[in-house]
């Protein structure tokens, strides 16, 4: 009867109903209650728990051969060393093999859509930065494009080009972190340092352009926050020279590395039909063999004028995803080089003071400028009523924004179609049969960013 004390019986098993006196009490924000030191929640301990105990059978029957019917329950996440973000997979393990996996998300649900309803159109840009926080500018571009589509305006060519350049550099940033953290989880720490060095260089450029390293909030409805600085061209060309070196370093270390290939070849392969049925987009879908890239299929901002290719894999396994991302970094740098080559002159914002703010000289010296500035700040951009779904290629796939406007300065409804949300939803069924060590490889390769997943 040693087991009886060591395990949780079904009666003791903490259920999901909360403590009665705290249940049903709304917790008003702004009033911080005292810290609950000592009153910690009871969570199901990671331990030897048998599925049968959930069904309430007697323990005695198991003492004959307890090992045969006990499965180990562990939580991978939401706080875990694999640096992917806050989500949780509850796994029932049979040795090292996963017998059942249930994902749980929402650990970073920051209420983006509700915040959008309470803020003005231009105030939403910082919130969009924090959706896919690895490549913030791409989210800015996605949202700005959606509002511009709803308003029916076209931004000046210089703004389009700069959006392409910085967008592609953001995509490079995203892939750097994805591959870097994936490799860290597999034990290859050096590559993480190499890629972060590259990321620091892009950060320097972004800081010079917009003032912030990561959360740039540089896109605006109608163009950009401000024009780029004078040395932009040299700095980007400098980046185009130094970044390939980091990529080549990692390539030489990893692509033909026996350990990496053994750990990733054949892991989590997915067929084209499955991937499409689950709504996958982005590098994960392209690794499965489907050549769908929004920039190629529905080009915007002259993506069809540049000379670049869409890398496509074959089996959709983790190794293919790594290869697709590495190649996409190279293709993105190729696009940046071409876009930089003929950067047109001109304004970076539309010439409408109801959309883009007037220059400060006009604000302080003319009545129209002051009134326009005042209206923009207090009432917001007046977007005509209607709805639109606009889509761009985010770091992970098709990033869609579904906007509903009632004609005012605040959105009526903003929905972000996050590519990670669709990619992550089949993790439950597909992890069955994998080993625990495969899970870290898979999670890294899917590039699930909690900010985007939970919004």
């Amino acid at each position, binding site marked *: 009867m040693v087991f009886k004390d060591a395990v949780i019986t079904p009666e003791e098993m903490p259920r999901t109903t909360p403590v009665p006196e705290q249940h049903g009490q709304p917790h008003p924000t702004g009033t911080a209650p005292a810290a609950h030191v000592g009153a910690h929640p009871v969570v199901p301990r990671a331990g030897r728990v048998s599925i049968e105990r959930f069904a309430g059978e007697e323990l005695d029957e198991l003492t004959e051969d307890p090992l045969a019917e006990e499965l180990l329950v562990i939580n991978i996440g939401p706080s875990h060393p694999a640096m992917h*973000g806050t989500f949780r997979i509850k796994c029932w393990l049979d040795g090292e093999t996963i017998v059942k996996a249930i994902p749980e998300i929402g650990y970073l649900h*920051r209420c983006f859509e509700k915040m959008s309803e309470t803020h003005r159109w231009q105030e939403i840009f910082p919130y969009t930065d924090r959706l896919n926080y690895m490549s913030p500018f791409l989210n800015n571009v996605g949202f700005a494009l959606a509002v511009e589509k709803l308003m029916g305006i076209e931004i000046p060519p210089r703004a389009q080009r700069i959006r392409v350049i910085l967008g592609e550099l953001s995509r490079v940033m995203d892939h750097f972190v994805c591959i870097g953290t994936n490799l860290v989880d597999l034990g290859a720490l050096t590559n993480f340092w190499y890629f*972060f060095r590259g990321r*620091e260089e892009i950060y320097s450029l972004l800081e010079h352009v917009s003032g912030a390293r990561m959360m740039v909030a540089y896109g605006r409805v109608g163009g950009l926050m401000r024009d780029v600085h004078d040395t932009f061209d040299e700095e980007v060309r400098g980046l185009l020279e130094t970044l390939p070196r980091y990529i080549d370093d990692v390539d030489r270390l990893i692509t033909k590395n026996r350990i990496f290939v053994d750990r990733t070849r054949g892991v989590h392969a997915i067929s084209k039909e499955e991937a499409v049925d689950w709504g996958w987009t982005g590098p994960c879908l392209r690794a499965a063999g489907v050549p769908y890239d929004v920039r190629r299929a529905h080009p915007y901002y002259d993506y069809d004028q540049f000379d670049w290719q869409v890398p496509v894999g074959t089996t959709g396994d983790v190794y293919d995803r790594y290869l697709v991302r590495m190649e996409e970094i190279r293709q993105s740098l190729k696009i940046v080089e071409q876009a930089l080559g003929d950067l047109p002159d001109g304004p970076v914002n539309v010439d409408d003071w109801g959309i883009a703010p007037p220059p400060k000289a006009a604000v302080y010296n003319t009545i129209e400028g002051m009134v326009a500035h005042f209206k923009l700040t207090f009432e917001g951009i007046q977007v005509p009523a209607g709805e639109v779904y606009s889509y761009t290629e985010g770091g992970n796939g098709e990033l869609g924004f579904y906007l509903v406007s009632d004609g005012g300065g605040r959105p009526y409804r903003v929905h972000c179609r996050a590519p990670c949300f669709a990619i992550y939803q089949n993790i439950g069924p597909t992890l069955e049969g994998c080993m625990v060590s495969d899970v870290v490889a898979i999670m890294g390769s899917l590039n699930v960013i909690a*900010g985007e997943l939970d919004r």
Partner: protein
Amino acid sequence: MGLKDDLVHPGGEPGGWPVEETPKSVFTTRLEKMVNWARAGSLWPLPFGTACCAIEFMSVVSAHYDLARFGAEVVRFSPRQSDMMIVAGTVVDKQAPILKLIYEQMCEPKWVISMGVCASSGGFYRAYHVMQGIDELVPVDIYIAGCPPTPEGLIYGIIKLQEKIQRGEPSRFQEIRAERRAAEAERHELVGA
């Protein structure tokens, strides 16, 4: 300090005790100062990274900014092996029990750095699912503002924590515990134990 000189030239006559050099190679202090110096110089961070600030934290431990210079080389994801929890990113209501559990698994002495405005006060998410600051739940020693704070800001915050430890000040956890014990003792007296 001339320690190297003492090693190369022990000082004094051959065969004699280096009487004059002793003050340079031996110093007296209080035990608390020694211990605090050791604690401050070897903080092992537990990066409780949830969101964007975690990426800036990654930048700080990376080659360019290098937190290892400040003694915080060993990043341990296990609460049992770390003494400083850096909460980097928004903590939402769903994550709150996890934060509490991880915090309580840490051994004393322990400090908490709240990195970024989301962890300090909820940031600009005044919303139905976001905790308005982790100090609703865990005692915080250092608040670092910024969205995300620049790596220099995080390093400054860690240096401030090191100074706080070096000064011998109690951590916020110890302060709250002392307050509660005092309140408990008062209650006992009132009740007439």
